[in-house]
């Protein structure tokens, strides 16, 4: 027996209870235990939607609702533009066994005209949707996550063994701004591992070489070149405004300088270092986890800590560690997963093994302890890095009440 549209609509309205915009707003504000689903088409969603709503076009409701709302007894509010399509979608959910489904009366139009809050979604261009499609397919990233990546500012300290793979994968992922601190030029001996540079760019500045590679891979990435050595004088200016810092430097002096400034600025540092066949990796999240000085209060003497140019390194080791750093950076930007804050990951290429160690904040840390924060605010930081303070000369505990300090400002 054929039925008319009016009859179908009447049946849907009888089956699916409606909720007014005011009631829905109250429910949304007062309870986290409700899922709001926008069943309109992509082009409508892009013009604005209810805050916190999920978007499942009505044509995908049957396919996608179980993954989005696994609990069939969870309260669900559906809406469309005018309140009709959401009634029919509500019937579909009831057929699937959802027990607590309501439809927003009057839809998004009624919501807006009664003055309730709404937000604009992240809208990607057609080209961006194609370029980042493998990200967009995953709900953990999606358009919102990709928009975060596009808006993110990441600073690489060094475009060397760790920074090269990091720069390439950050650019590929669509990180909007990549700052690079490096004053070096490309040397033939770099190319065994620093894969962002090329043979025909030997002799050019590393920041320029990296910029060319990034532009070729993803022209929409903004590269900010800081062609200078990171020092106590310029570090505050250079790191300002960045969301995450990837430490790919190769001296202790720079690592301590960076640590102290990043702690003061509250910027997380994703740290890695390498030696021959091994690497160390962690995340220094200021005041939530330990900082570099909590981990290593003082640097070793030079003979105990040779860099790659003295000791050598299997090229793939900084590659692997740089990629693991990039993984941490992306997780921090996206706000997903568990970061390595408070955990030190050791990689051994010969064993092909990872070892995880527990790290803690040092309550007496001269950079991130409460006392250190107070002292810094008073203009008398407990810890400062003296130029050349990488060996036994100029290193040591100075004064019984300020242990683990490289140098104390006089």
């Amino acid at each position, binding site marked *: 027996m054929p039925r008319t549209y009016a009859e179908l609509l009447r049946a849907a309205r009888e089956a699916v209870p409606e909720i007014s915009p005011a009631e829905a707003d109250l429910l949304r504000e007062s309870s986290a235990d409700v899922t709001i689903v926008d069943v309109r088409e992509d082009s409508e969603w892009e013009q604005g939607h209810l805050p916190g709503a999920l978007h499942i076009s009505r044509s995908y409701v049957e396919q996608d609702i179980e993954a989005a709302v696994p609990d069939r007894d969870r309260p669900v509010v559906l809406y469309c533009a005018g309140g009709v399509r959401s009634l029919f979608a509500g019937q579909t959910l009831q057929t699937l066994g959802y027990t607590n489904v309501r439809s927003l009366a009057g839809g998004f139009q009624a919501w807006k005209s009664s003055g309730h809050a709404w937000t604009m979604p992240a809208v990607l261009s057609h080209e961006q949707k194609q370029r980042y499609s493998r990200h967009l397919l995953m709900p953990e990233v999606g358009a919102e996550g990709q928009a975060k990546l596009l808006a993110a500012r990441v600073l690489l300290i060094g475009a*060397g063994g760790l920074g090269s793979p990091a720069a390439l994968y950050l650019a590929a992922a669509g990180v909007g701004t990549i700052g690079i601190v490096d004053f070096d030029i490309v040397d033939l001996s770099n190319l065994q591992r620093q894969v962002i540079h090329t043979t025909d760019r030997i002799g050019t500045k590393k920041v320029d070489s990296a910029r060319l590679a990034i532009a070729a891979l993803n022209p929409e990435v903004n590269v900010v070149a800081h062609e200078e050595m990171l020092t106590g004088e310029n570090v505050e200016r250079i790191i300002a405004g960045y969301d995450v810092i990837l430490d790919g430097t190769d001296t*202790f002096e720079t690592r301590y300088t960076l640590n102290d400034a990043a702690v003061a600025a509250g910027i997380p540092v994703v740290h890695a*270092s390498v030696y021959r066949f091994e690497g*160390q990796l962690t995340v220094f999240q200021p005041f939530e986890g330990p900082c570099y000085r909590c981990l290593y209060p003082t*640097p*070793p003497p030079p003979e105990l*800590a040779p860099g790659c140019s003295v000791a050598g390194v299997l090229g793939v080791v900084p590659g692997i560690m740089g990629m693991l750093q990039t993984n941490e950076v992306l997780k921090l930007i996206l706000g997903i997963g568990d970061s390595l804050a408070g955990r030190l990951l*050791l990689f051994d290429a010969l064993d092909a093994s990872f070892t995880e160690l*527990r790290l803690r904040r040092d309550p007496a840390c001269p950079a991130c302890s409460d006392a250190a924060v107070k002292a810094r605010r008073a203009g008398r930081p407990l810890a400062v890095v003296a130029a050349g303070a990488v060996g036994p000369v100029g290193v040591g505990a100075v004064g019984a009440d300020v242990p683990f300090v490289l140098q104390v400002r006089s």
Partner: protein
Amino acid sequence: MTVIRIPPVLRATVGGAKQVDVVASTVGEALTALVERHPSLRDQLMTTDGALNRFVNVYLDGQDIRYLQELATPVAEHDSIIVLPAMAGG
């Protein structure tokens, strides 16, 4: 036997070994046994008065001994000690 894992930078000093087995009841005894067997390690790991150098971290089964009982931390058979100096390479 307690296993002490030797970091790459110190392996030349212990004849290339990746790990050294010692018999000990504390971390301090284990490290003392290690440096007695390989005396040239002493200056690299310890200060003249026998304390650990500040640039060397020691982990017992993944935990930093600074937050256990330092060198007095007891070790059981089959425990694993990791000696870890900072590395700078990048």
